[in-house]
C-alpha cells in the first residue's frame, strides 16, 4: 500500500499541484494610480480604439454601427468557436463596472477581473506591449460609448481547450511580452508605426502562421497564414516577392484608407473591417504604419498547408 502511494499517487498529486500553481492567472497590476483611474483622455483613447481594431470583433454582428459593442461575433477557429464578449459600457452585461486596472489586466495579462484567464483569441499578446497610459485613455473613450444589453454566448470549445486553466500553461510557454522600447536607429515615423502595429494593430495575429500550440512561429511572422475560419489565405506582407515588395509605402497607406490595392483590386474579408478602422486614423499615423510595414524584412511565404 505504501509503495503504491510513494510511486504512484503522491508524485501525481505533486505534479498536479505544481501545474495548478504554474498555470495560475497573474494580473500585471493590483491597481493603477488615481491619475490613471480618473484622468484618461477619451479623444486620445479613440485613436487606440481605431488602431486596436476593437470594433472588428466586439461590435454586435448584423448591424453597421461600429460603436455598438454588444459582442456575440462567432470567431470560428481550429479549437472551436470563440464568442467575443460585450465590452459596451453596460454595467452588468458589459464592462461598465470595470476599473482602468481591470482593463489593463485584461489587455496586458489576459486576466479577467474575477481572476480567470482569457483565451488568446483576444490578442493580449499584442496589447501587452502598449503603454498603460494609452490603455487608460482607451478606457476613457470606451466609457463614452453606449451601453448594450445582453451577454455574448459562452465559447463553444472542444476538449481539452475548454479547460480555461490550461491557458495558464500556454502562457508559460508562449506569453513573455517584452516592452517596446523605441529603436533610436530608426525614424520617429517608423517607431510610431511599429508601436501602432505591434501594440495595437495586431496585424501579425492574422498575417502570420502558427505552430501546433497556436503561437506565432517567428519564421512565419507576417509571412502569411490561413484565415481564422480555415478558408482563404491572409497574405504575406513582408518585402518578399511573394509578399508586397512591389508596393510603395504610399500604396500601403492608401490601401489602409480606401481598401484599394495598387493593381486595381480591393481587399476583402476581414481586411475590409480593418480598413474601416484604419480609415479613422490621422493620415500621419496611417503613413507611420505603412512605413513600418514597408520596412518588414523579406520572408518567404509560410507554406499554405500549415494550419493556423
Amino acid at each position: 500500500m505504501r509503495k503504491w502511494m510513494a510511486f504512484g499517487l503522491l508524485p501525481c498529486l505533486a505534479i498536479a499541484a505544481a501545474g495548478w500553481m504554474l498555470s495560475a492567472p497573474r494580473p500585471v497590476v493590483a491597481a493603477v494610480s488615481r491619475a490613471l483611474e480618473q484622468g484618461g483622455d477619451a479623444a486620445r483613447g479613440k485613436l487606440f480604439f481605431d488602431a486596436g481594431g476593437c470594433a472588428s470583433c466586439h461590435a454586435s454582428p448584423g448591424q453597421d454601427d461600429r460603436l455598438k459593442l454588444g459582442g456575440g461575433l462567432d470567431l470560428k477557429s481550429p479549437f472551436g468557436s470563440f464568442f467575443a464578449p460585450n465590452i459596451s459600457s453596460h454595467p452588468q452585461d458589459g464592462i461598465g463596472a470595470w476599473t482602468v486596472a481591470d482593463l489593463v489586466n485584461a489587455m496586458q495579462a489576459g486576466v479577467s477581473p474575477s481572476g480567470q484567464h482569457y483565451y488568446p483569441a483576444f490578442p493580449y499578446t499584442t496589447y501587452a506591449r502598449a503603454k498603460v497610459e494609452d490603455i487608460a485613455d482607451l478606457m476613457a473613450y470606451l466609457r463614452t460609448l453606449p451601453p448594450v444589453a445582453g451577454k455574448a454566448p459562452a465559447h463553444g470549445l472542444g476538449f481539452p481547450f475548454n479547460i480555461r486553466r490550461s491557458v495558464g500553461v500556454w502562457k508559460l510557454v508562449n506569453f513573455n511580452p517584452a516592452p517596446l522600447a523605441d529603436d533610436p536607429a530608426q525614424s520617429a515615423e517608423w517607431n510610431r508605426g511599429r508601436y501602432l502595429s505591434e501594440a495595437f494593430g495586431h496585424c501579425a495575429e492574422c498575417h502570420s502562421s502558427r505552430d501546433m500550440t497556436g503561437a506565432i512561429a517567428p519564421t512565419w511572422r507576417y509571412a502569411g497564414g490561413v484565415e481564422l475560419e480555415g478558408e482563404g489565405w491572409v497574405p504575406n506582407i513582408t518585402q518578399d516577392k511573394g509578399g508586397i515588395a512591389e508596393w510603395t509605402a504610399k500604396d500601403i497607406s492608401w490601401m489602409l484608407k480606401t481598401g484599394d490595392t495598387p493593381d486595381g483590386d480591393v481587399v476583402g474579408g476581414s481586411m475590409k473591417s480593418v480598413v474601416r478602422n484604419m480609415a479613422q486614423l490621422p493620415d500621419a499615423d496611417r503613413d507611420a504604419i505603412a512605413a513600418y510595414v514597408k520596412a518588414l524584412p523579406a520572408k518567404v511565404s509560410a507554406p499554405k498547408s500549415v494550419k493556423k
Partner: protein
Amino acid sequence: MIRTVLTLTALAVGMTSVLAQNDPIATRKDMMKQVGRANGEVIKIAKGDAPFKLETVQAALKIMQDASRAMPGLFPDTARTGGETAALPKVWETRADFNARWEKFGKDAAAVSAKIVDEASFKAAYGQVSSNCGDCHEGYRMKK
C-alpha cells in the same frame, strides 16, 4: 475590298463569341484583369502618383460598362469549375442577385462617366462606381 474587310470583321466577331463560348472562364478572367488594370490607372491618379487625365478615367469607365454587359453571359452552367476560376458556387445559387450587380455596376459607371468632367468632379464622383468592386467580390469571388 470592302467585302473582305466586312467578312473578316464578321469572322473576328464571330470567332470571339465562339471563343467566349468555348472558354468563358479564360475570357472572363481576362476581362476582369482588364477592369483591374484600368481601375489601377485611375487609382494612381487618385493617389497623386499620376497627373489627372480625363481620357484615362473615361476609358476605364467605358471598360467597366463593357464588362458589365459581357460578364453575366460568361458564367454558363457548363463553366462553374476548372480553369483556375475564382468564381464561387454562389454565383449560380443567387444568379439573379449576381446579374443585378453587374447591371448596377454598368449603370453606376455610366452615371459617373456623365458626371466627370474635371479633377474635382472625378474626386467627388468616382467612389460611386468603385464601391461596387468590394460588394460583389465579397460573396462571389474565392479568397486567394
